[in-house]
Each structure stands twice: as structure tokens, then as C-alpha cells.
């Protein structure tokens, strides 16, 4: 009787199984589809705006600039010098920055969620973004000279590092971090830094500068120029490359600290490197585009819904998805209320809050928040 029951139970197990091969094919297809979406959304982004540029012209302008002389033989020059200037000097760097920042913030979110084993972790909840904003606001209001010639990026990075170290120190007890303490410390510090930069803003009293800063705090890619791009590009590529090499320790850490230790991960050192890396990424991204909320929260979860929890798949999909998402968000921010631009956090929040609430309703999220 017993063995009969067991044999009957076996096919049910098989039926629930998804063959790994199919999943891998799906992953490759997804990466290709997302890469196409990155190009398509960027193409769209450079042609949409107050002065419309035809898609073919946008393509021609970029091709002509990248490989001079390639165009006359292929496409007639149908665009005006103004269009060329707008596309090349403003829209393309802005669109590229949207890709970099979207990918960067999303990847940071994925890493932090694994690091603290909390699905609600993102750069905002851990106070890192607020720290970066604080550093940046100090430079914007007081001037670089007041801070010993620190550049905006450097100040934002210093701020995010300061926040991260404080969160780390507050959340650990004899070297071990408990997720609930980490989130509480992060949220508390976020409020502290917000209060600090609001105070500086009030002191500054110069309405126009304060207005600019406020807009920047909500996120904007308006400052994109070619010379802004190299640093975030470098940090993003180096960061994602490092993380992809470390996908196995990341998986182990996501499975639990003791598990990671028993699997040979030097947890303290690995955690430290992840903390430094995420602060570097957030600092650089916030310095170029302000504090854009929700990207780091939503995108990794969407990626996991698509490809599961393995970071070898999660990281590339998160990066691509984040890039496309922020590109679309920026297009919306520029067009919905044109010629006025919306702050990016307004647009991301319109997507983000419903998603966040849905996440809270999930049982697994409940469990993670209550576990100490």
C-alpha cells in the first residue's frame, strides 16, 4: 500500500517541475528582447520633444556623428542644424544617462535586497539616497569651495558612504546584521538626512536655488551632457561586471548568512565589498540625476518574477529592465506636461506605489518584515 501511494505521488512531482532547459532559453530570449527595447526606447527618446525629429532623421543624425560621412551616400540629410544640435547635444546624452541611472539604481536595489534578505530594501529605505542628496545639496547651496572643492559627484558619494556606514554601524551587533534593525536604522537615518538638507535649504533662503534643488531632489535628467556620462558609465560597467562574477556568493548570501558561511563565503568581507559598491553606484547616480525613487524597489522584483531568484539571471535582466523603465519614465516626464518637465520621482511613484502596496500584500513580504 505504502509503495503504491508513493508511486502515485511521483508523477505529481514531475508535473510541477519546470525543465531547466526551457527556462534558460527563455532567459536568452528575454535578454535579446530587452536589449531591443533598450535601443528602441532610446531611439524614441531622442526623437520626441518640443522640437520633433523624425525617427529616421534621429537615426541619421546619430549615425552621421558616430561615423562621419557615412550618411550622405545612404540617407539624404533631411534634418536642420537645430535638430542636429538638439539630438546630439541634449537628447542623446540625456537618453544614455537615463539608461545608465535606471540600470544602476535597479541593480543596487537587487543587491541590497539580497544583502539584507528583505524584499522591501531599496536605496531609499536604507538611507543611502538621502545621504547622497544631503552631500549634493550642501555643494549646490553652499558652493563647492565651502566643502574644500568637493565636486557634486564626490559630495554625493561621500554622503552616501556616510549614510551607509552609519546604517551599518547602527544595524550590526557584534558583527552580525539583523535585517529588521538594518531597515529601521536605514529609515531613521533617511529621515535624519532629509531633515538636514531641508534645514540647509531653508537657511539658504534663495528661492530660485532652493527651487532647483527641490526639483533635483525629486530626480531629473535635465543636467545630462556628454561630459557627465563617463563616470556613471564606468562605475556601472565595473560594478555589474564584479557582481556578475560574484553571483554565487550573492545567491548564498540571499539564502542566509549561516548558509553562506557554511558554503565558504567570507561573509564579512563580501558584505563590506557590496556595501562599498552599492554606495559608490548610488552616490554617482544620485549626483548626476538626483534621488529617483522606486526604480531600485520595483525593477528587481519584476526581474525576479520573470527569471526567478538566481542572480546570474536576475542581475542582467534587472539592469536592462531598469534602463528601459527609466527611459520610458523620462519620456513621460518630458511629454505629459510639456513644456514643463515632471520630476522623475513623480512618474516612478505613480507606477511604484501601487506595486509597493501589492508587494506588501504578499505573504512572503509580510514574513520577511516580521522576521528579525
Amino acid at each position, binding site marked *: 500500500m*505504502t*509503495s503504491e501511494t508513493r508511486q502515485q505521488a*511521483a508523477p505529481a*512531482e*514531475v508535473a*510541477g*517541475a*519546470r*525543465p*531547466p532547459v526551457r*527556462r534558460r532559453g527563455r532567459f536568452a530570449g528575454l535578454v535579446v528582447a530587452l536589449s531591443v527595447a533598450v535601443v528602441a526606447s532610446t531611439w524614441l527618446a531622442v526623437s520626441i520633444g518640443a522640437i520633433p525629429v523624425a525617427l529616421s532623421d534621429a537615426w541619421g543624425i546619430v549615425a552621421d556623428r558616430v561615423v562621419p560621412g557615412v550618411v550622405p551616400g545612404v540617407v539624404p540629410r533631411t534634418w536642420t542644424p537645430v535638430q542636429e544640435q538638439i539630438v546630439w547635444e541634449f537628447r542623446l546624452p540625456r537618453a544614455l544617462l537615463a539608461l545608465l541611472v535606471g540600470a544602476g539604481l535597479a541593480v543596487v536595489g537587487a543587491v541590497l535586497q*539580497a544583502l539584507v*534578505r*528583505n*524584499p522591501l530594501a531599496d536605496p531609499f529605505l536604507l538611507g543611502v539616497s538621502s545621504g547622497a542628496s544631503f552631500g549634493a545639496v550642501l555643494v549646490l547651496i553652499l558652493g563647492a569651495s565651502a566643502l574644500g572643492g568637493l565636486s557634486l559627484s564626490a559630495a554625493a558619494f561621500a554622503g552616501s558612504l556616510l549614510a551607509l556606514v552609519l546604517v551599518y554601524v547602527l544595524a550590526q*551587533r*557584534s558583527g552580525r546584521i539583523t535585517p529588521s534593525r538594518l531597515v529601521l536604522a536605514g529609515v531613521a537615518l533617511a529621515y535624519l538626512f532629509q531633515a538636514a538638507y531641508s534645514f540647509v535649504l531653508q537657511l539658504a533662503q534663495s528661492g530660485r536655488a532652493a527651487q532647483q534643488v527641490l526639483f533635483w531632489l525629486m530626480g531629473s535628467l535635465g543636467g545630462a551632457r556628454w561630459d557627465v556620462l563617463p563616470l556613471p558609465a564606468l562605475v556601472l560597467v565595473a560594478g555589474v561586471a564584479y557582481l556578475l562574477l560574484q553571483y*554565487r*556568493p550573492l*545567491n*548564498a548570501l*540571499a*539564502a*542566509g*548568512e*549561516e*548558509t553562506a*558561511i*557554511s*558554503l*565558504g*563565503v*567570507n561573509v564579512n568581507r563580501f558584505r563590506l565589498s557590496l556595501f562599498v559598491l552599492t554606495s559608490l553606484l548610488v552616490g554617482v547616480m544620485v549626483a548626476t540625476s538626483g534621488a529617483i525613487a522606486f526604480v531600485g524597489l520595483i525593477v528587481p522584483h519584476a526581474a*525576479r518574477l520573470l527569471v*526567478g*531568484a*538566481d542572480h546570474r539571471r536576475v542581475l542582467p535582466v534587472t539592469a536592462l529592465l531598469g534602463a528601459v523603465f527609466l527611459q520610458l519614465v523620462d519620456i513621460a516626464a518630458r511629454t505629459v506636461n510639456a513644456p514643463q518637465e515632471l520630476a522623475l520621482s513623480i512618474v516612478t511613484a505613480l507606477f511604484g506605489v501601487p506595486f509597493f502596496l501589492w508587494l506588501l500584500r504578499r505573504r*512572503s513580504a509580510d*514574513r*520577511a518584515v516580521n*522576521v528579525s
Partner: protein
Amino acid sequence: MKLDLRNVSVAADGTPIVHEADLLVADGEFVTLVGPNGCGKSTLLRAIYRALRPTAGLITVDGDDVHRLPARQAAQRTAVVAQETPADLDFTVSEIVRMGRTPYRADARADEELCARALDRVGLSGAAGRIFATLSGGEKQRVLLARALAQQTRLLLLDEPTSHLDIRHQLEILHLVRELGIATLAVLHDLNQATAFSDRLYVMSAGRIVAGGPPEQVLTPDLISQVYGVRAVHRTQLVFERLKEEQ
């Protein structure tokens, strides 16, 4: 492979938990650690797999101090099935098992084969693509055992591997581990099972190892009443035995 603890004391969060423990697991031996709740069994185990650093004494695996070995090398020698389970992220069974390869250089094809074999060994080859969180308690425990097998160590540490399991699955897990022939140190609660399965057995009480040796010699009514505060009575009772697999 030999695990050797000499005079080991361990503290957790600054509180001394384990005092001057001596313990030995020889090659291929199944050794059990029993004792009342809170006596320090798990803490001692955690010191062996480096989650805690002993405050005094020496823990060696194959003659090397485990706390001086590089993290990866230590993990190539010792695998753990602990109580902590990866709960929140949607890892599949095969992804969990593949984590056992973390201490080694990645080799996609060989790793896949090893993991498939480990899953087969615990009788879950059909479940490779399932989400770990959706499994039953017994299946989860077997998956974690498969991960430890994929780690290809010659020492296995089990922290209450049979808690949450029904009697049949308890017996299956213990038989499975016994049949592996790997040097094993297991924390068990059920004294009857500990007696049935162990080559040798250590009894812990209030942070100290108070007795050690073959189960029948160690688990005397006197010692049990002294350590657990209960009276051990011999009685005719049901004894559970695993049905042989018919295949």
C-alpha cells in the same frame, strides 16, 4: 577525515555557552550529540562550521584548525544541514542544490551532473524545477541534504535534521545519511533514534559534554534523569522501522 575538538569553549553575543568541550568524529563514523534544549549543542556545531569563533580551544578537521583555513577550503571539507532555510526568494530546487558548488571553481556541466546525482540520491530528481518555498518540510530537508551532498565533503554536520518531519521521513533521512558513510556529527532530539543510529554519542548538559561513548553504555537511566530531569523507563512499546523500498 577526522573532526577533533579539544577543550573548546564558545560564546554567543558575549555570553559563554559551551565550556571546554572535547569531541571526536572519526572517518565514516556517525556521531550524535544529544542534550536538553539550550544546552549548547547548536552553538557547538556553529563553531565547527565557523559561524562562531571559539573563545578557547582548538577545532581541527583533518588536522587543520578550521578557523585558520581559508573560508572556501573549510567549506570544501565540511557541509552543513542547519535549521535556517532560505525562505523569501524564489530559488528553485536545482538552484538551491547548485549552491553546494559555491566553494569550488564553477564548471557548468560537471556541476549540473553532480547536482542531479545529489537530488537523485535524496529521491527528488523530479522536483528540480520546483520553487523551494513551495515544498513540504520533509522535501525541504531533503533538498538541503542534497545541497550538502553536492558540496562533496567528507564531514557532514546536521542540526536537528529530523525536526518538523513525520516518523517515516525522519527514518528516511537518517538511513540516507548512514548509508552515505560520511563522517557525520548530528544533533538529535529523539534519544531512541540517537541510540539506533549512532556509532557513538555525546551528551551535553549546561554547556558541558558530560558523557560520551557507545549509546547503550552512555544513555543510562541515571544519566538521563540527571541531564533531562525525567525518569527513563523500559517498556514494551511500538518500534518504528522503515519499510524497504520496493523497486
